[in-house]
């Protein structure tokens, strides 16, 4: 029987396209024949904007890219600038960065499991995960004053030291979250319907995953053992003991398991990082680059001038180009900076993991059913802010 192909426009307003993704799907009945992603609805020209801003002024732009993992975006960017400048970051700042990065991973993965479960119909997990995410948000607010657009890291360290109550709050997360993860697994991993929906869905082989340039859980779910935190450690990750979760079949269930193991590992890293957290400076001793302490700015004319100079002129970076990749919750987030010796980058290019991961959507969902496509969008864990930039 010959059937008519139906073209369905999914998005940009659609409950499960996670923001403003637009997919033009060609359907043969319920079977997906072709998927054409249309992106750019959230394009704000962040890369171009950064060429007209000093290095410090770009930091707030970066946390608007992957708005589910803002601190990790900040981290990648400041690491790139620090590499360009050749600055060493103090021990305490590095540890706090690791804590915030892992909390960010938890936060991002919690949103992922929430939306993924909701797309497949498990409504309760959604609300549970958002309840837990709120605790991470509280810590965000505690350290940076903002729940999403954190802008907390600075070139050379942190904007300020973490406040009192930070350690107990993180400790609370370390203590309670494993139990919450068990709840999710109880609701999902042990649920036959969940297994039916995820096992064998959106399969991508290890070879294909590498060829598409996938990274993060979509890559590891296919059995490729690659994690930048371990393979190209940054911010002191070499000093932590953690496992990299690797799947086997490369289906949605394996990616789901990978992310859940990652969340458990994050808790373990957090535990170790809390042990390492020793008092000390949180900003490198680099007066050319780093802002002076706030007391100096308010109380001395030299401090005020110092602050004003860095804020208005920025600092010149040596000529050259650097690339730094960090293991964002979504995959490899890379910052490529070209400097012509001025106080503004000549070019900033971001390698957004979601953008690259999204390219595999047709490979993963073609020939499956409409409902599987939704599951694949969920399992890719894309953020449009990062794809469009």
């Amino acid at each position, binding site marked *: 029987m010959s059937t008519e192909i139906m073209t369905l426009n999914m998005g940009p307003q659609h409950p499960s396209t996670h923001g403003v993704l637009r997919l033009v799907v060609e359907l043969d009945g319920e079977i997906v024949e072709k998927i054409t992603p249309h992106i750019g609805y959230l394009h704000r020209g962040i890369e171009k904007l950064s060429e007209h801003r000093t290095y410090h002024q770009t930091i707030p732009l970066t946390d608007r890219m992957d708005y589910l993992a803002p601190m990790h975006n900040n981290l990648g960017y400041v690491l790139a600038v620090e590499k360009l400048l050749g600055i060493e970051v103090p021990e305490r700042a590095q540890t706090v960065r690791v804590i915030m990065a892992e909390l960010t991973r938890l936060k991002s993965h919690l949103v992922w499991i929430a939306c993924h479960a909701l797309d*497949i119909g498990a409504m309760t997990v959604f609300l549970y995960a958002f309840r837990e995410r709120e605790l991470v948000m509280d810590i965000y607010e505690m350290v940076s004053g903002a729940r999403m657009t954190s802008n907390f890291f600075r070139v050379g360290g942190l904007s300020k030291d973490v406040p009192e109550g930070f350690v107990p709050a993180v400790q609370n997360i370390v203590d309670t979250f494993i139990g919450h993860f068990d709840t999710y697994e109880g609701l999902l991993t042990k649920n036959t*319907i969940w297994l039916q929906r995820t096992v064998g869905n959106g399969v991508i082989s290890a070879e294909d995953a590498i060829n598409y340039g996938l990274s993060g859980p979509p890559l590891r779910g296919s059995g490729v053992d690659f994690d930048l935190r371990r393979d190209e450690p940054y911010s002191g990750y070499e000093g932590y003991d953690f496992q990299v979760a690797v799947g086997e079949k490369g289906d949605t269930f394996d990616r789901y398991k990978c992310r859940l193991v990652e969340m458990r590992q994050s808790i373990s890293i957090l535990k170790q990082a809390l042990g390492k957290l020793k008092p000390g400076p949180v900003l490198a001793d680099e007066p050319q680059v780093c802002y002076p302490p706030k007391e100096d700015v308010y109380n001395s004319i030299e401090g005020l001038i110092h602050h004003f100079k860095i804020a208005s002129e920025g600092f010149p970076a040596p000529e050259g180009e650097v690339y730094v990749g960090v293991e964002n919750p979504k995959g490899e987030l890379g910052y490529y900076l070209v400097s012509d010796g001025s106080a503004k980058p000549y070019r900033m290019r971001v390698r957004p993991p979601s953008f690259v991961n999204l390219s595999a959507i047709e490979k993963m969902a073609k020939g499956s059913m409409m409902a599987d496509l939704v599951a694949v969008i969920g399992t890719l864990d894309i953020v449009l802010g990062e794809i469009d930039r």
Partner: protein
Amino acid sequence: MTWDAIDIGLMLAKIAVLFFIILTLAAYLVLAERRILAWMQDRKGPNRVGPQGMLQPLADLIKMLTKEDLIPAAADRVLFAVAPAMASIPAILTFAIIPLAAPETIFGHRVSMQVTDLDVGILFFLALSAIAVYGVALGGWASNSKYALLGSIRGLSQLISYELSMGLSIVPVVMLAKSLRMSDIVNAQAEMPFIVYQPLAFVIFLVSILAECRRIPFDLPEAEGELVAGFHTEYSGMRFGLFFVGEYINIIGLGALASLFFLGGWRGPLLPPIVWFFVKVTAFSFFFIWVRGTLPRLRYDQLMHLGWKFLTPLALVNILVTGWWLSLR
């Protein structure tokens, strides 16, 4: 058959009371669902309108009625307008055969607590659930929207598939009661509710009515993650409200039938019959809500497999076994 004025008046009174009861119940079931789900999900739920949100259904009704009634430009206007009624009327009509309590004698007049005790009660119910398909199908088709069309095609195939297993799972009940009449079925359970003899049929019936109500895990026709809102994507205001209320009336109606078929209807010790019946229906409604809070959604082909390759054969085998057992007895 003689119809005197009392009978007609009684009938009209029964219909009026029943209407009031089911509409109120349905409205409060919506509220109950929201509150219970909220409780399961560790949040508050609607609690602002009136004490504990008890006036929320009223507020919702006002909102629905005052909303703009949008009809898409390319829609089939007549069918689009009629479809919500087609979906909710069969749900309401089902209550005509449901006995709410034991017959009472008032002023020497024997009054049965149901609108009509049809000889072919169960068939009437099956016929109504067969027509209920039209609301879903035509509503989606008339919207002239692709999501709605996909939703209504899904709805069509789901409803007719699960009607089959639902119908087959009631057959053993009819075999045990030796009647299609509702009152006979309830009376046949005077000693023991049928769930004791027919646990399998009960389970099949329960799963099938979940699918008939289009509830999670079978809410594919309106799966919001995939089809936005499925067959009622284009509906707004009270037309959407009719689909919505129809769904909840259906939950109550099917819950009532499940308790009539398998739990002995209004029969129970100590408490008055009407209370027992209410308790049983509420228990089924709670079960529906609970399932929604727990399970994810099936995929279309998995849904069909479950219906055709598992439930229907199982129901057939169950009929054969029941027949064999009855012939031995």
